[in-house]
C-alpha cells in the first residue's frame, strides 16, 4: 500500500530508526512499509498516524482498495 511515511519523515527530519523506535518496531519494518513491500497492521498504522499527528487515511493511500469494494 502506497504511503507518505518517507515524505513525512523528511518533513519532520527524523530517521527511520527514530520512527521505528517510537512505534516499537524494527527499522527494517519501516523500510518495508515505505517501499511498499509490507502492509502495516492496523495497530502499527494507527501508531504511525498518531506519531505524525495525522489520521491513517492521511498517510496511507487506500485508493487501490476502494476499486475492489462493490457497493
Amino acid at each position, binding site marked *: 500500500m502506497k504511503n507518505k511515511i518517507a515524505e513525512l519523515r523528511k518533513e519532520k527530519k527524523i530517521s527511520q530508526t527514530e520512527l*521505528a*523506535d517510537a512505534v*516499537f*518496531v*524494527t527499522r*527494517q*519494518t519501516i523500510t*518495508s512499509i515505505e517501499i511498499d513491500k*509490507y502492509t*502495516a*497492521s492496523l495497530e*502499527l498504522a494507527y501508531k504511525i498516524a498518531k506519531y505524525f499527528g495525522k489520521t491513517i487515511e492521511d498517510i496511507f493511500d487506500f485508493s487501490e482498495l476502494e476499486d475492489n469494494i462493490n457497493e
Partner: protein
Amino acid sequence: MNNHKKELNFKKGVIAQLVLSSIYLVLGIVLFILFLIKIDGLGSDSLGWTMSLLIVGLIAFIISLITFKNKSVLRKRTIKHYDETRRDIQLKSSSYSYYFVMFFLFLITVLIGQRNNEFAAMLLLVILLTLVVNLFIKYALTRIYTKGGNSDETSE
C-alpha cells in the same frame, strides 16, 4: 498488547532462559568435577557431554544475563521479537520448511522402501498423519478465530 506488557512478557522469557542456562551450567560443572576426580560409571564420552553442557550453558547464560541487565538490549530484543515483518517472515519460512520436510520424508520413504517395505509403510503413515494433523490444526484455528461471530449478519 502495549509496549510495557510486551517488555514484561519478554523479560519473563529471558528469566526462564537464565534459569535453564544456569541448570545447564551447574550440570556441566558437576559433571566436570566428577570427570576430574575420575568417578566410575560416567562413560567414555562423558567429557564431550560435559563440555557441550558447559559451553552451551555458558553462552546462553551470558546472552540472557546481558539481555536481562541491559535495558536498551532488552528493549531492542523485545522489539525484534514482536516485530510485524519478522513474524510474517517466520510464518512464511515455517510453512515453506514444512513442505521441505514433507518432501524430505517422502524421499526417505522411497529410499527405505527399496530395502524395507514395512518401515517405509510406517513412514508413509507418519507423513499422512502429519498432513491430517496439520489440516485439523488449521480447521481448529479457523474455528477459534471465528468463534463468537455470526456467520451471516443482515441489516434492515
